[in-house]
């Protein structure tokens, strides 16, 4: 592997900049003449806009202009869209209500943008925003999905009667019903997946710059996928054609999905820059982030799992209702469908599966992908159900899982996915060993003697990363392809730039991508620069989400490197008068195999650019581009075991041990992978124990709009994690890697809830398992 190549634990190149406060984020960007924006937002969850009077605000100090939705509409700016078409089971297309970047007639959630104020300073803009007088006629609101489906519920969009967006199904309902009817045992459970706020450290921000001389726009934005932002803003919002719009996502401080989507603010600031003739910057504050960043999860499901007399799962039936909020965000329709129901086979051979999913509008902020996106919902549902089944059947949860494991690959599930590789038994064994599963009863007895209730819980997750191939996702309704691009640019002195269409906002691309080049060419990672996040620099790309940068993005780099190497070998062969097929690349040199003839890498690069002595007919230069479209998803899987002690007097849970055994395939940088797992576990533990977005069901006001009320996990909420790694290389991409960004958040919630319910002897417990809820569950046991 070499000291800096694949598998090396090198520290991150980008950390010096981040840890010394020298990162350059969107809010750090300033341009001459720049002004500041503040949005006027709806204080109501649901209301008609009767009128907007900005005359007083326009007179306030420093105010340049106040612009509203009617003006935006008059200028032909389009509505926001959802880019994944889902058809209901009756064949009708999903019912998309209009989402205007600035509301025109109706506001549908607290925080819905109504107008933009541009002023010399942010404080002046904010003062003026308060002075904009909007007359509203308040209407009844509904915030919960089930309530929104009831007769007489407030209706959000005329396009969607009953607030129903789609009623979709996957799998064979008849077969699943038959399995349940003929089962020896059926486990039934209702599953709630709590609504979460993503909370990236850097709030969203954007700077819109219109250059009248060139009729050209530049958009700095906190995006996980700047090219997709440009595409969507050009093709659907009519902001500007792609050649007139540059999108730059500089350093971005975390996204977790919430920065995939195109939000109203980017569009409105670009448009406002043209209207006012000044560059316009907007930075969200934390309250605005709680109010307007797309939320995650929010499912309610009914589950039936059927078993035969041998405890084999014979069928699974799932009925899910998902809350999508007030409008359909960019990929919101895909999350509770193709990113969710397709994972309902888990690690198990289940002959018949059927899932029905209804999605509904409510007067809440839009819900879209959040770390894991659909797979945490599927995993939580399955792993809670199988643990419950083990308790009902009186068998060990590990044994019940083992009995049902898929053991040969490839494996075609009844819900689309074709698992290419895996070894679930090895991960379970590793996790149980690390957790000292066998010694648990002694530890439980010891806890009992200290007045504590100790429990152990397991979760065996599978997830799917690097959504692909493009043709397949296209046939399922995706509006985009899900390939990735790379350009490898060798400079005349031999240093290298890699341009990737994926985007790093905490993942460490600048290090891992350089390690790949170091591995291949034997050069140091310091001689490799990774360029990303700027549509003017980087060829078209699809960005970073769904743990795709390694599996898809780096595979594109591999393809480009293949081409670079092939050309470099031709040049070296010509220089050394050898046969091209005898050239090998090692330690920064090109060698004629079996001889002592070598030429250093930089000389080959120089030769490519001086072009004094190239093989006949060869073009000068050493730079290659590749696009990579994967053959399949990748399937990381693993086993997590949580052990907890509950204080019966207060209901407080202490995580006394947390074991994660993951199979991510081949690993480029173990240090970064472990960091990703730690972060994912923190978020999963946050979901299980602490976090929940809550709206007042009557007024639709967001109750958890600050950290005083929304409980984010802190370091002392988390134990020291015991990690291990198993490896079945992924056969579907050249590097054999699977993706590790989301696993921690996917696998951990069910392990914890299984452990807590084991400890307290009451299986009805919803996330987050706050001390109060655990205490209440204990009261009903006594």
């Amino acid at each position: 592997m070499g000291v800096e190549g694949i598998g090396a634990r090198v520290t991150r190149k980008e950390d010096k900049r981040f840890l010394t406060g020298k990162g350059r984020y969107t809010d750090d960007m300033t341009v001459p003449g720049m002004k500041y924006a503040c949005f006027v937002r709806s204080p109501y969850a649901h209301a008609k806009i009767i009128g907007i009077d900005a005359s007083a605000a326009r007179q306030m100090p420093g105010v340049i202009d106040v612009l509203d939705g009617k003006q935006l509409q008059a200028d032909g700016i389009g509505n926001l869209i959802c880019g994944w078409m889902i058809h209901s089971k009756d064949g009708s297309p999903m019912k998309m209500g209009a989402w205007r970047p600035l509301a025109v007639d109706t506001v549908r959630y607290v925080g819905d943008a109504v107008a933009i104020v541009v002023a010399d300073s942010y404080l002046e803009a904010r003062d003026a925003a308060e002075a904009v007088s909007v007359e509203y006629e308040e209407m009844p609101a509904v915030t919960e999905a089930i309530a929104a489906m009831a007769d007489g519920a407030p209706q959000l969009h005329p396009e969607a009667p009953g607030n129903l967006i789609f009623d979709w199904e996957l799998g064979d309902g008849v077969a699943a019903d038959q399995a349940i009817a003929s089962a020896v045992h059926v486990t039934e459970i209702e599953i709630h997946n709590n609504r979460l706020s993503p909370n990236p450290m850097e709030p969203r921000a954007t700077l819109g710059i219109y250059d009248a001389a060139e009729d050209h726009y530049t958009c700095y934005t906190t995006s996980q996928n700047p090219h997709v932002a440009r595409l969507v803003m050009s093709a659907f919002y009519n902001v500007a054609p792609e050649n007139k719009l540059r999108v730059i996502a500089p350093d971005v401080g975390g996204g977790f999905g919430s920065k995939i989507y195109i939000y109203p603010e980017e569009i409105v600031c670009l448009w406002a820059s043209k209207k006012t003739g000044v560059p316009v910057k907007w930075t969200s504050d934390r309250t605005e982030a709680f109010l307007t960043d797309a939320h995650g999860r929010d499912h309610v499901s009914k589950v039936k799992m059927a078993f035969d007399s041998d405890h084999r799962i014979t069928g699974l039936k799932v009925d899910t209702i998902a809350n999508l909020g007030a409008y359909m965000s960019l990929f919101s329709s895909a999350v509770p469908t193709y990113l969710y129901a397709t994972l309902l086979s888990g690690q198990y051979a289940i002959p018949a599966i059927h899932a029905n999913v209804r999605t509904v509008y409510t007067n809440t902020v839009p819900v879209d992908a959040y770390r894991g996106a659909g797979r945490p919902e599927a995993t939580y549902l399955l792993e809670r159900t199988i643990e419950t089944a083990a308790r009902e059947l009186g068998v060990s949860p590990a044994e019940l899982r083992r009995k049902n494991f898929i053991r040969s690959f490839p494996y075609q599930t009844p819900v689309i996915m074709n698992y290419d590789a895996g070894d679930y038994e090895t991960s379970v064994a590793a996790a149980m060993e690390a957790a000292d599963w066998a010694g648990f009863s002694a530890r439980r007895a010891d806890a009992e003697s200290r007045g504590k209730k100790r429990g152990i819980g397991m979760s065996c997750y599978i997830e799917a990363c690097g959504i692909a191939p493009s043709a397949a996702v296209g046939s399922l309704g995706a509006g985009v392809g899900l390939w990735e691009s790379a350009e490898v640019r060798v400079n005349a002195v031999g240093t290298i730039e890699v341009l990737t269409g994926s985007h790093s906002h905490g993942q460490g691309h600048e290090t891992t991508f350089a390690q790949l080049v170091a591995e291949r060419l034997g050069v140091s990672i310091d001689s490799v620069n990774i360029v990303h996040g700027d549509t003017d620099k980087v060829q078209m790309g699809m960005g970073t989400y769904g743990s795709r940068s390694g599996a898809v993005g780096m595979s594109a780099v591999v393809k480009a490197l293949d081409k670079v190497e092939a050309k470099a070998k031709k040049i070296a062969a010509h220089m050394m008068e050898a046969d091209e097929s005898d050239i090998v690349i090692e330690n920064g040199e090109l060698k004629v195999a079996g001889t002592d003839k070598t030429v250093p890498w930089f000389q080959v690069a120089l030769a490519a650019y001086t072009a004094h002595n190239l093989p006949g007919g060869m073009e000068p230069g050493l730079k290659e581009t590749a696009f990579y479209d994967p053959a399949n998803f990748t399937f990381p899987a693993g086993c997590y075991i949580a052990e907890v002690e509950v204080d019966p007097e207060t209901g407080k849970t202490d995580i006394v041990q947390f074991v994660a055994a993951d199979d991510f395939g081949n690993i480029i940088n173990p240090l970064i992978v472990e960091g990703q797992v730690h972060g994912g576990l923190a978020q999963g533990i946050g979901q299980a124990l602490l976090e929940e977005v809550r709206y007042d069901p009557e007024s639709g006001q967001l109750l958890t709009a600050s950290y005083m009320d929304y409980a984010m996990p802190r370091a002392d909420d988390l134990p020291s994690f015991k990690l291990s790694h198993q490896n079945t290389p992924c056969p579907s991409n050249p590097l054999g890697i699977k993706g590790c960004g989301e696993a921690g958040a996917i696998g951990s919630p069910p392990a914890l809830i299984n452990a807590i319910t084991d400890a307290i002897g009451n299986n009805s417990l919803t996330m987050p398992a706050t001390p109060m809820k655990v205490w209440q569950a204990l009261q009903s046991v006594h």
Partner: protein
Amino acid sequence: MYETSYHRASSVEDAVKLRGEHEEGRYLAGGMTLIATMKQRLAAPTDLIDLRHIPDLAGISIDGRNVRIGAGTPHAEVAKSDELRAVCPALCNLAGMIGDPHVRHMGTIGGSIANNDPAADYPAAMLALGATIITDRRWIAADEFFVGLFETALEEGEMVTAVTFEAPEKAGYAKFANPASRYALTGVFVAKSADGVRVGVTGAGANGVFRHKGMEEALGVNWAPDSVAGADVDPKDMLSDMHASAAYRANLVKVMAKRAVIAAG
């Protein structure tokens, strides 16, 4: 934050005078509550009178078992004071449980009790210790000082300069933190002295910090952790909000009281 004018007071008299000149002015101590409230535009004082540079408000002095803590003393200083720990370690422990290190180095005891947040820690201790709140114009018994949610006996412009109390024989504090804010979801301070036992409860009461007379009597008869088990904590008197029901808080009051007695020894 709206525009405001900043004034640095050099003495107590100076501060009170400045405050008198600005009807819509406010004292500024650590700013841990006030500045945050202003940033959220929930408060808009025209003038801030900064108390942090007044020498008379600083520090802890101990004379025998008589303790005096200046209003401007930050929590971190209370937490680490060896002299105070020698006579009343429970108060040091309480101060060390407030917020995070940043908050403890900025926030002050005067600001905390003047604010009287129903989930703040100090008010429970002040009640249980039978402390006296000293202001620029009078002495107020803690029992009279804490009036209701965010309400105190302070008059317009009146300034807390110090708190004083006689160190008890034994005292202990137990806090169950709100998982989000880490303020007290319920905190109980117990103190035993020659005059009897006093129990201050914060975070739980529907009307803010209060004394629990039933527990005081029970502990007066028998100073033991289990003595509080039989006490009647009526959920009707408890706060109920999205973080905790009244029934849960009523339970926590008893559990924290028991643990406070254990902590007191």
